[in-house]
Each structure stands twice: as C-alpha cells, then as structure tokens.
C-alpha cells in the first residue's frame, strides 16, 4: 500500500513538470513576447526564481515520497525515536535564510529601475510625457500632445489641465515610438483600474484622485522587425477588477518602427484634429 500512495504522491511533481513542459513547447517560452528592456531583467529573474524553486520543489516532494515509502518501522517494528536534531535545524534555517535573503536583495535594483521615478528622471532628465491616460468604466482614454509646427517636434501639453488646443484624444489606443523611453501619466475617472501591457512588462494601477507617472519602452524592437505597415500592436488590458465590464477593457499599444514614423503619424493626427470643429468638445 505504501508504494501505491508513494506513486500517487509522485504524480504531483510529475504532473507539474509535464504541464510546464507542455505549455513551454506549445507557447515557445510561457511568458508573452517581451519587447522591452526592463522585460529582459524581469524575465531573467523569473527564470532565476524558477530554477531555485523548481529544484527545491522536486527535492522536497521526492524526499517526502521517499520518507513515505521507507517509513516501515525498521526499528524493530517501531519508528526511530528522535525528537529532532539541533544541527540539522540550524543548518537548514541558516541555509534557507541565506538563499531567501539573496533572492530578495538581488532583485531590488531591477525593481528600482522599473518603478523609482527619480531613477528614471536621473537617466532621462528631459523625457516629456507622451500622453495622459485616463481610465474609466470600461475604456481607456489617451490624450496626446499635438504636433508643434513651429519647433517641429511634439508640442508640450498641459497634462494637468489639457484642452483641445494642445492635445487630442483617442480611445483604447496608445501610440508610441519603438526604441525610445516613453513616459505617460495615468489616472482614472471612477474606480481603480490597472494599466497592463504584458509585452512591455509594465503594470500600474490607476488610482482615483491621483495621477501616477508610468514609463516603459519597446527598446527591443528594431526597424527590421516591422512589416510594410511599419507598426506593431500589443495587447493592453485592465488588470484590476473595475466592474462587470472589466474583462472587456482591452486596448492596443501601437508601436511605430522609428521615431520618424511616429512623428509622421502624430503630424497627420494633429492635422485631422485641428480640422474638426473645436466646439465638438474633443
């Protein structure tokens, strides 16, 4: 009987590994495609944790099964009489603590690069916000600055109080250039939503009453990765329950192959915007 149960308990690690292998092969690497520079670090950390936890998982599960099938009272029909071992307790405590502390501190720099705004500002002191993103039930509204003909670059827009003269609005679409760091400001009209673009490895809740800076890039995309249409679309979804329509709050981040392509698009969009009647509101 003990072998039977041993085999049953062995199915947990076996089924686990099998499912991971199956989905790895079928999806070429589990995680959604990554096109961002921070994503390389995050994905590396994922594989790093996977390696450590995977080994611990297999070892502990196998040890448990081994303990089960060998626990046959080999001490004269009784079990061995021991209340523990101080040296074992100390060694596994110290060893585990060391591994865990290493895992924890090893990851802080990546987190800082991903989320500490002052680090971003230090590195990119003059990146201007590309857009103000406003979530509401159940859509994303992006407001981007108009093209400035005089200085021949994207114009400044007052993201704290934008209006139709300095910016235009789009729904469920955000355009960015490849290769450049992008900064947006994120807020919401009603409830908490969450800005998540899996392929850019960026996630940030939109908080009622607050405006939060978010930055990311599509730095891994090279011009030759693009087809003739010169753009690539990435899934952009809401990741925080925001009501019944949460599941359909999905949008697209459109990455343009080069900065010039992006500027060309922005120019055209600005012209379109200025030809509509201003009193239409948007």
């Amino acid at each position, binding site marked *: 009987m003990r072998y039977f149960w041993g085999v049953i308990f062995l199915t947990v690690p076996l089924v686990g590994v099998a499912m991971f292998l199956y989905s790895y092969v079928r999806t070429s690497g589990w995680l959604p495609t990554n096109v961002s520079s921070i994503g390389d670090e995050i994905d590396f950390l994922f594989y790093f944790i996977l390696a450590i*936890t995977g080994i611990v998982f297999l070892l502990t599960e196998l040890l448990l099964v081994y303990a089960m099938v060998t626990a046959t009272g080999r*001490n004269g029909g009784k079990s061995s009489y021991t209340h523990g071992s101080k040296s074992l307790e100390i060694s*596994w405590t110290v060893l585990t603590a060391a591994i865990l502390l290493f895992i924890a501190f090893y990851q802080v720099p990546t987190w800082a690069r991903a989320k500490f705004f002052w680090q971003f500002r230090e590195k990119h002191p003059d990146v201007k916000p590309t857009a103000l993103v406003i979530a509401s039930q159940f859509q994303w509204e992006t407001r981007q600055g108009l093209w400035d003909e005089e200085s021949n670059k994207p114009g400044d827009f007052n993201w704290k109080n934008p209006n139709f003269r300095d910016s235009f609005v789009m729904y469920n679409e955000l355009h960015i250039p490849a290769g450049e760091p992008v900064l947006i400001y994120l807020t919401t009209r009603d409830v908490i939503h969450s800005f998540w673009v899996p392929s850019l490895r960026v996630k940030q809740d939109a908080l009622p009453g607050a405006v939060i800076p978010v930055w990311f890039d599509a730095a891994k995309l090279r011009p030759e990765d693009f087809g003739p249409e010169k753009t690539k679309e990435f899934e952009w979804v809401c990741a925080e329950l925001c009501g019944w329509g949460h599941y359909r709050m999905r949008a697209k981040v459109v990455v343009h192959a080069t900065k010039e392509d992006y500027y060309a698009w922005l120019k055209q969009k600005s012209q379109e915007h200025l030809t509509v009647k201003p009193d239409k509101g948007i």
Partner: protein
Amino acid sequence: MAEHAAHGHGSNGHHQEPSFLFKYVFATDHKVIGLQFLFSGLVFLVLGGLLAVLIRVQLAFPDYAVPLIGNYLFPSNAGQMTPQFYTMIVSMHASVMIFFVIIPLLTGAFGNYLIPLQIGYKDMAFPVMNMLSYWFMPPAFIFILLSFFMEGGAAAAGWTSYPTLSVIRSAAPGSGYGQTFWFLSLLCVGVSSLLGSINYMTTIINCRAPGMTMFRLPMTTWAMFITATLQAFALPVLTVALLMGLLDNLEITAFFVPANLEANTIIQSYPRTISTMFEALGMERFAEKMANTGRPTGGQPLMWQHLFWFYSHPAVYIMILPAMGMVSDIISTHARKPLFGYVPMVLSVAGIALLGFIVWGHHMFMSGMSPVLGSVFMVSTIMIALPSAIKTFNWIFTVLGGNVRFNTPMLNALAFVSLFIIGGLSGIYMASTPTDIHFHDTYFIVAHIHYVLFGGSLFGIFAGIYHWFPKMFGRMMNEFWGKVHFFLTFLLFNVAFFGMHNIGIMGAPRRYADLRSWIEGQDYNSVMMFFNHLISFGVFLLFAVQIIFVINFFYSIFWGPKAPKNPWQSNSLEWEAPSPPPHGNFETIPVVYRGPYEYSHPEVEQDYLPQTLKLDRPIQEGHH
C-alpha cells in the same frame, strides 16, 4: 494555573443536564459550539463550491447557455451568463470560502472542540461568551444570503471590495444594498471571531490541567493560541475598515472616495470634467462640493487597501496556522514518531505570526503605494517563507524513519505537506516585486491561493475531520471510502488547479468573465483554452466526488462502528476522554507527566506513551 484547574471541577456529575434548547441551540458546551461551527461551515462549503462550479462553467463555455438554470437566471441573455452575474459569483465565492468556511471551520470548529480537550479542562474559560461567538454567525449568514436577493444582486467588487468600486453605489450592480449587506455580514463574522479569540487565549493561558506546561501543549493548541493572538490584534483594524466602508457605501462619509469622481458615466465633454477634477484635487473647493452634493469628498482609496490587508494578510495565516498545527499532530500520531523539532515548530509558528504583521504591502506592489516601501515589503515577505520552510522540513523529517499508518487522516495530512510546498514556493514569485509586475492579478495568484487554501487549509480540515471524527461522534468513519475520497480529491485537485500556474504565466488576468482571444496568436489561444477546459472539468469532477465524503460523514454519524476512547493510540489528552466526551469532558481532571509526542519510545513496550500515564520508573524523554 495548575491549581486553578485542579480545584472544583471534578466530574460532569456536578453539572445539571440542560434542556434541549440549551443543550443544542443556545449551547455553552464548547463541543456543541464546535459542532455548530462545523455543520454551518460545511453547509457554506457546499454553497461556495456551487459558485465555483458556475464560475468554471462560464470560463470553459462562454458561448453556451448555462445548463439547467440558465433560462431562469438569464432569460434576456438567451440563457448565457451575464458578466454582471459573473463578477458577483467570483466575489461571493471567495467571500464565502474565506469568511464562512475556512476561518469558521479552523478556528470555530476545531479550535472550540479541541482546545479544552487538549489542555485537560471541562470547557472554555467563558462559556457564555463562547455561545455568543457562535450566535454572531447566524446574522452574518442571513445578511450574506439576503444580499443575493437585493436589487443588483450580491456584492460584485471582489472579496477585497476595493473602493471606489465598492462604495459608489452606481459603480457596480452589486455596490448597492448587496455591498451594504456584505459589510454588515463581515462585521458580524469579525465580532464572532474576536469573542472566540479572547476566549481561546484566556483558556489556554489559565485553564491547563496540572502538569500541562506551555511546552507540553500539542501543536494544534499552540497554533490555535497564536492564531487567536493574531486575530485579536488584526480584527479591530478590519472592524474599523468595515465600518468606514459601510458608511462610505451608504454615502454618509467619504473615507475612501476622493473628490469628483463620476462612476459609471462615460463623459464625452472631456475638458470640463478633467479640469474640474484636477482643481478639486487641491483643497479649495471641498466646502463647495459638500454643499452641492451633500456628500463630503477628499478620501483616499489606498487607505482601504492598507487597512484591509493589515487584517487580511494575517488572516491568510489565520487560515493556515491551525491546519499546520493539526497536521503536525496527525502526522506524528500516524507516523508513530515524535514530532521532529517541536520547539522550532512552535517558534516558527510564532515567527510567521510576527512577520505576518509586516508584510501586508505585498498585495499592493502595483497599487500606487510608494515603490520604495514596496521593496521593504518584498524583503519581509520573502523572509516569511523561512518559517514555512522550517515547518515543511520538520514534517518531512517526522515521517522519515517512522512507522507510517497510511490511513485517511494521515494521507490527507501528507497531502497538506505536499501541496503546501507548491503554494509556499509560488508565493516567492509574487513576493518578488519585479516578477510581480507580471504576476499580479493573473491566474498565477489564483493558483497560489488555491494551493495554500484548498491544498493547505482544506486538506488540513479533511485530515482533522477524519482524525477527530471518532472523538466527535463516537463512531468511526469508513476507511475504504475515506481513501477513495482522498485518492480522487487529491488527483482531481491537481488537475483542477495546477494548470492555473501555466495560464497565469501566460498572462491570463484573474476575475475576467471571458479569457478568450489573447492577442499572442493561435497557439497561445489554444493552449489557454486547453488548460481552461482541463481546469473546468477538474473542478466539476472534484465537486462531484465530494458526495463520497458527505455520504461517509452522515452514514458514519449514525451507523459507523462504535469508536473506542483512543482509536489511533494517540498521546494527547483529548483521547483520555470518552468518545464522545460528555458535558464536562473528563471524569477526573487529568494530570500531565510529559509532552504529547512520546511515540515509539525504546524503553516502553507499546509504541505510544499518553501524556497522562504515570510510569513507575523514570525514563529519558525528549522534552518535558
């Protein structure tokens, strides 16, 4: 302490037999109260399970009408489930399972039943308060059940009920009276737990039998003691948060509502709204706003998350520590071997409890909380895996070299260990802030939750029921059907929940009413749907096979073979009392001579040595 317990309460003969009403309904006997918690918890387990089945029906077959009930519930939607209904059942499934099943079963049922028996006392320190702690539950039941019939249905803002979704009445269909009742119901559950926890602490500190020192307590009682302490410190915070949420939800206050939100209205005249919104972020216009709407503004939605998780993170330990304690006792008993590392086991439970108070921010890494604070919470959270790891190693080493009896309680306890390993390890991915950027609010979290709460807590509860059933009802459960139930539950559990890790890594967001059409491409979609179907069929079968348990449970209550006093040859005090113990528990108050884990002592012939057995010659024992 010993004195206190010794004088006075000799035998049950002193107690007058109460009438039926006071014996079974307004009972003050800890055992009856424990069983009341047990039965109501199991009833809600069925309800929570049914909701889970409905969730999985929708996710696996989003295009089809719901069988049997679809045409009655969703006549205007051709029998297909509406997303409104889906968000409601997702929210209620979690709320029911956490607040009406796991917490009441572990602390309410097992805590009540076992504490006085394991410490050798006739009852809880405050029997009437104990009765009250149960009688705060029925109002909670009524509120939560009624909430389904409110206009708009029950609460639909998740079990976490984040504002502003939960407190702006128009923000979700369930945010009207459904949500109001949710707040009220949880308030009652909180009061119930608080009364219980005060009782447990007092009883364990003051009422132990002569000779029962703190370090002779079985792990179950230790875990209950520390859990009670956790509850006593964390519950006031939840109570405050719930009251604030309730007042906000009734539109009396705005603790969690910032100025100028317009829920549920998509405003096209964009410049006007956004500018007034930002103006109002300054303080100038608050007074005017209040005059206009009658509702104050200027609250902080993040404050709810801090208050809620300050309770609810310790609460996840409230939901696992008692199970850890029970599993420790069960494994030691059925492995016929002393618990490996008793003192480290106690210390690591205490360590989990202490650390548990400084990790709540790991639920808020993406919330807009300062990311600097996030890195501090990352370190504390990863370190909380340390005591969990120590416990796991000790369980495995308890089995190693043992003389294991593979019976149903033992198998369920071993499953606890096997599955808790997975839940603990997956925690590290989410505790790591950089990877949590990807994992937060995906199915990976759902997998984690179910490996710790189903694989951990619920298997612990099954183990506890199979183990203490003979004591509770004086009859044995059927071993064969117990094993069949375990075998199917264990396998189907993994079928149902393991794949959630995979779709989580692939990026499936949680709480979505429809998981199809991921943009990555055909293969991604088909793998996602493959796992979705696998998970759903796993859940359906998993739910179905629980009928074996239900039949075994009820059949055995009435017709199982009579149980002896100590069917498992166990050492702890509850097995000295008759099965089932009468009112007052022990014929004479037991005297304790040793710790609870003296199994297979080489100088004793039998392979166990009860805590109460006085030996005529001293022998070398593990701890005293």
